């Protein structure tokens, strides 16, 4: 929460009319860089379509998938995209529940990121299956063969968990946008006004609607948090419930959840810088918000690194020769360049976020966020590939460097995600107008309260930590205030 003027997240004197105008203008008139990004994303996506068509016609051998490498980068990418989706829940749901005001200008695009990264992730199990036309076999329906999916398998849990998470996060995004749709309905013209009018569902902002909206949004936030945790725990169970070396790790669920939040926060940093530039959002996506986001990312990086260390330590001090040899092979074998890239990007690079000057420097943070994501992608790759390459049977050992088909599909998934995201932020407001208005109101009230306290001589910055006056050392902070000269009647 913002506590003092120097800590404010945006200018509280922003006129509400201006907020509406700025956000609507951003949707109509982005910089040229926006259109260049759209073109790049379309090209990337096109590469993936070509690669998928080729793989579909020629078979999975074109992707190099065979025993023992039946998953490889497709599954690593699946885990990566699922992980990305967690940042939206963190910014939207968790920070909403704890009333962190600074999330308000940026949570909307984080929520969109959640939905679109889940949509992207959903492709990879289909792509790696090979026989896409049999995809419906994973659905729990009564078939004429009397065969059901195995509900004891984490792979089956995945289908339930991800579809639940996708629908819940999409609904969370849609519900949260209703008041803004009403703003757009009232202040745009032509076909846009008609479309937004339908999406506003007849919202007029009366007290009954706001009360129900507040409760609904809070309830959904409360459900999304355990859901997000369960989704990535279940994804981690895909690995940890097997007996393969490198996968059978007790700490995998929290490790995966921390990794998900970490990569998601890094993605938020990247998109923050992009949107701020594309849509000239400097008044809303401020340096203070960026700084808070990077601090949060730095904290999560700490948690993730701790869990990484725990994983290594438990392998090192455990008695499984397979696990230990696999760890050594990761660090010194064929996969060593990828392994050390992961360590550099995910463990060393985050320390740049410890310096305030760097935290407030957008180009630096943009590059840092890309490094963090590279680190988290290689981390997922280092979970999937080495275990498949060097499992229990040495006669099966085989190193796979993904062929161009896999790379093209993985590369194209970033284009697909980027395209969805860029279209979204052009058609819908990437900044929540009503929440930014609430934020300015909240800041004004807070500063007014502070001013009143200052005039009354009661204001004490950081009162709990401020050094006490001589003779006050034994008193509690509130008693120190009341007992100050001139405050006898307070």
């Amino acid at each position: 929460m913002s506590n003092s003027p120097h800590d404010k997240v945006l200018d509280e004197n922003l006129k509400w009319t201006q907020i509406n105008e700025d956000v609507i203008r951003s949707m109509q008139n982005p910089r040229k860089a926006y259109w260049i990004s759209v073109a790049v994303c379309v090209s990337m996506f096109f590469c993936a379509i070509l690669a998928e068509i080729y793989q579909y016609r020629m078979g999975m051998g074109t992707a190099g998938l065979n025993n023992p490498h039946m998953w490889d980068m497709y599954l690593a990418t699946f885990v990566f995209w699922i992980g990305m989706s967690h940042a939206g829940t963190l910014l939207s749901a968790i920070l909403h529940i704890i009333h962190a005001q600074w999330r308000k200008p940026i949570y909307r695009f984080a929520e969109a990121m959640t939905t679109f990264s889940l949509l992207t992730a959903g492709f990879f199990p289909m792509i790696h299956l090979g026989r896409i036309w049999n995809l419906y076999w994973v659905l729990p329906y009564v078939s004429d063969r009397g065969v059901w999916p195995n509900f004891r398998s984490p792979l089956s849990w995945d289908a339930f968990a991800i579809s639940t998470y996708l629908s819940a996060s999409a609904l969370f995004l849609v519900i949260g946008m209703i008041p803004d749709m009403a703003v757009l309905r009232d202040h745009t013209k032509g076909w846009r006004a008609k479309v937004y009018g339908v999406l506003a569902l007849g919202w007029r902002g009366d007290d009954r609607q706001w009360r129900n909206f507040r409760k609904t949004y809070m309830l959904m936030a409360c459900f999304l948090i355990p859901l997000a945790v369960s989704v990535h725990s279940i994804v981690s169970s895909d690995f940890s419930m097997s007996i393969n070396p490198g996968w059978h790790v007790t700490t995998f669920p929290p490790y995966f959840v921390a990794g998900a939040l970490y990569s998601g926060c890094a993605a938020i940093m990247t998109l923050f810088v992009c949107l701020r530039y594309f849509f000239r959002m400097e008044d809303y996506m401020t340096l203070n918000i960026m700084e808070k986001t990077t601090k949060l990312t730095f904290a999560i990086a700490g948690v993730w690194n701790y869990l990484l260390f725990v994983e290594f330590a438990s392998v090192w001090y455990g008695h499984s020769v397979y696990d230990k040899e696999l760890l050594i092979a990761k660090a010194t074998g064929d996969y060593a360049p990828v392994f050390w890239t992961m360590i550099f990007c995910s463990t060393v690079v985050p320390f740049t976020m410890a310096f305030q000057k760097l935290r407030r420097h957008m180009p630096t943070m943009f590059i840092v966020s890309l490094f963090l994501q590279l680190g988290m992608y290689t981390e997922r790759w280092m979970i999937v590939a080495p275990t498949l390459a060097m499992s229990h049977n040495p006669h099966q050992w085989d190193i796979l460097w993904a062929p161009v088909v896999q790379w093209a599909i993985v590369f194209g998934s970033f284009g697909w995600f980027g395209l969805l995201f860029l279209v979204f932020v052009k058609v819908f407001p990437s900044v929540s107008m009503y929440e930014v208005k609430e934020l300015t109101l909240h800041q004004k009230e807070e500063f007014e309260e502070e001013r009143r306290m200052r005039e009354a001589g009661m204001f004490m910055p950081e009162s709990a930590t401020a050094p006490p006056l001589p003779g006050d050392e034994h008193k509690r902070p509130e008693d120190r205030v009341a007992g100050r000269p001139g405050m006898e009647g307070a």
Partner: protein
Amino acid sequence: MASKHKMLALYDDFEECFKAIKAIRGGAVKGVTVDDLTVLSPVDHHGIDEALGPRPVNVQRFTLLGALFGVTFGFFFLASAQASFLVQPQGGKPVVPLPTNFVLMYEMLIFFAVWTTVLVFPVLSGLFKKRDSLYSEKLTVDHMGVIVEEVDGHNLDAMKDFFKNNKAVEIREEKI
């Protein structure tokens, strides 16, 4: 019989709006109570609830129902599917294994709770209704509005005077 009117008073100062609502709540206008008022706002302002007093919200009851349905449905859905495995050898394993089923029951609890919440939200909020002719686009910018749902014809001038005296920037009315 006197005609009935609906009235909207627009405010650009929220504090003045809250003062007016509190005055009506205190009986400032004869024949109009706080239950006749609807407050429109561009943001979810905490002052509205303070001014209007407690009003019920029932979304959470439906959410609970949805959650209970979800967990129950989850159990019976999985158990009935697993029961079809009875014809297959289970190797001593339970036909309906509770620990693993808990995971999917948990997912279904959330799934149905969220969907129920979302489906009842428009109903309980009175969405999908056509906006009345009194509605002003200023209400999605920076103005707050107070709607008096029903004012008797002989009380109309008193109501207008009250809003004028309480610094409303615009007053609209229509016959109902």
